[in-house]
């Protein structure tokens, strides 16, 4: 159990990286606190697995430091870091039985046979592998193999951390849910730092207390699932989290009014001031579809928009709209009246975010 700190960490697979695009991990600082359950969320190719391999020591970063409890471990091999990692695809030792597979990590460091047995039985119980213990690992199904792989990580006590690299990819959905709960349970029981890599926001938010969202080799936001939903730090987080993703309206000040394309918006004085102050060309207003107010009739302070499509999803509907040439979405509850051709939109100021050059800028409210 250790606190894992990444200091100025950067990694490139190329021998001589030139531009930022050459880096799999761009310079970043990050702390995984002792005993937390974390998720590392991001689309494929964003550097999640690279980061995980750097933490476990399978990769040596080309720059920066990895610290365990404040001590630099860059040059320590994975064996010496006492860290467990579960990979995306099951890795089992074909010629061994399930029991021997689970005992393998313990026997490698000469754990007493009695203790090995205790731990193996305990983990097998948790993962429901007990009936399979005597079978050769080679003859297991993909599900069972992955459970064995996970078991080899969980069987070790006192590890610095357990890292999961999309461990449930090959598992069928029903079992997936069950295993995620098991992991959560194990986490609560042993208080081990766990980092869970996934590209599935649902998986991330059910497992983790805090989620780090990665984008193009950087952690763009680290926060609770609620924070990520309500106040995304970066337009990417807004798009990526939530379904459908956040709306972003490119805006500009024209003649003292906030304009989105040709449509004027009513957003309040604080935003107007903030917009006035910025010199950037890339300014967007972000709002979750859940918070967009769409009225079927004209209301005060609303902007008129054209309805493109209504997607009825039972208890709610997703409205696709065009406002000043920009497509956006709004979510309607079932009891709200459905606009047909035109809709009048209002954006509650408290739910709006200002994004300058893709990053969120705090707007002081009066």
């Amino acid at each position, binding site marked *: *159990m*250790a606190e894992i700190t990444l200091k100025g960490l950067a990694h490139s697979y190329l021998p001589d990286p030139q531009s930022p695009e050459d880096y799999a991990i761009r310079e970043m600082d990050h702390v995984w606190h002792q005993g937390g359950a974390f998720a590392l969320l991001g689309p494929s190719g964003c550097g999640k697995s690279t980061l995980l391999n750097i933490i476990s020591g399978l990769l040596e970063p080309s720059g920066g430091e990895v610290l*365990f*409890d*404040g*001590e*630099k*471990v860059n*040059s*320590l091999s994975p*064996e*010496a*870091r*006492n860290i467990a990692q579960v990979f995306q695809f099951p890795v089992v030792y074909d010629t061994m039985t399930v029991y021997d597979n689970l005992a393998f990590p313990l026997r*490698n*460091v000469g*754990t007493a046979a009695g203790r090995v047995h205790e731990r193996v039985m305990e983990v097998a119980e948790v993962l429901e592998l007990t009936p399979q213990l005597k079978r050769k690992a080679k003859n297991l199904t993909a599900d069972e193999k992955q459970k064995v792989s996970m078991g080899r990580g969980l069987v*070790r*006590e*006192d*590890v*610095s951390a357990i890292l999961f690299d999309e461990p449930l990819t090959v598992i069928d959905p029903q079992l997936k849910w069950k295993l995620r709960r098991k992991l959560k349970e194990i986490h609560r029981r042993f208080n081990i730092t766990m980092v869970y890599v996934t590209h599935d926001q649902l998986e991330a938010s059910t497992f983790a207390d805090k989620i780090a969202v990665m984008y193009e080799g950087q952690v763009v936001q680290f926060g609770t699932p609620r924070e990520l939903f309500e106040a995304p730090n970066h337009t990417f987080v807004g798009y990526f989290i939530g379904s459908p993703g956040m709306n972003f309206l490119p805006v500009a000040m024209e003649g003292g009014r906030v304009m989105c394309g040709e449509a004027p918006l009513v957003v309040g004085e604080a935003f107007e001031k903030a917009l006035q102050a910025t010199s950037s060309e890339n300014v967007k207003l972000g709002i979750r579809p859940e918070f967009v107010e769409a009225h079927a009739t004209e209301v005060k302070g609303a902007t008129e928009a054209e309805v493109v499509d209504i997607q009825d999803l039972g208890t709610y509907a997703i409205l696709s709209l065009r406002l000043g040439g920009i497509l956006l979405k709004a979510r309607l509850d079932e009891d709200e009246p459905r606009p047909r051709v035109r809709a009048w939109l209002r954006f509650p100021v408290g739910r709006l975010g200002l994004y300058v050059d893709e990053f969120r800028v705090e707007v002081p409210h009066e």
Partner: protein
Amino acid sequence: MNRELPTTPEAVRERAARANDRRRRRARPASRQWRRRGLMTAYLVFVLLPIYWLLNMSFQANSEILGALTLWPQDFTLEHYARILTQSSWYMGYVNSIAYVLMNMLISISVALPAAYAFSRYRFIGDKHLFFWLLTNLMAPPAVFLLPYFQLYYTVGLFDTHVAVALAHCLFNIPLAVWILEGFMSSVPKEIDETAFIDGYGFPRFFVRIFIPMISSGIGVTLFFLFMFSWVELLLASTLTSTGAQPIGSVMTQTKGASGIDWGALSAAGVLTILPGILVVYFVRNHIAKGFALGRT
């Protein structure tokens, strides 16, 4: 160095501290890496030394060879090579060898491809027995067939021709080719064939246009093996030929003259037999790593 692996976070921390300490004092030698390289180099030296010695001899005049032992040619000469490459009795040996090797490769691969396909895709009467019988031919010692071959080819008038040797080498090369290709073909999913047939491909067109390109690296490896076993075989090749189609291997025996062995010429001729092999390996080097397991890992 402490070989014990740490089993608690505290131990990891302690170890990291120690390692960092050490690094401040001196860089860590990558000793394991060097041991690997050292052993590999030792083996390569073992492989290359006899070949180097052959090369060394081939560039020395016979007087130097028989004089004092020299580690490299003191008086560098190309006379042996010049002789081999200008006298037709010598260089025809190479031409003959290459001729029957290429013929054999062509014959073997063209009959083995359809046969291997049949074995990998269909069940038919006697398939297993036939396959086993084929493999037994791979195991037949050439010495066993020496006399019957001699008589057979003499009777049909093929004695001392390239065809005779090419056909004789089919004894082990065709079974080998079928066996290797069958392995590669079995690793190509059957659905490919079915899709192609549904798309209206006839068998010959499918086979040539789609299937063969898919197992090209398998074919490359097969050709490599066919070349190898036909090129290196001498017992059959020298028995079935006299002067007209004599392989280089038996030409080399003529270096035994009345005045003893012509070591220089023998060495130069030996060096020249190694070159085609190197050329062939060079071409298939990228397939060897994967293909040498013959599709059976």
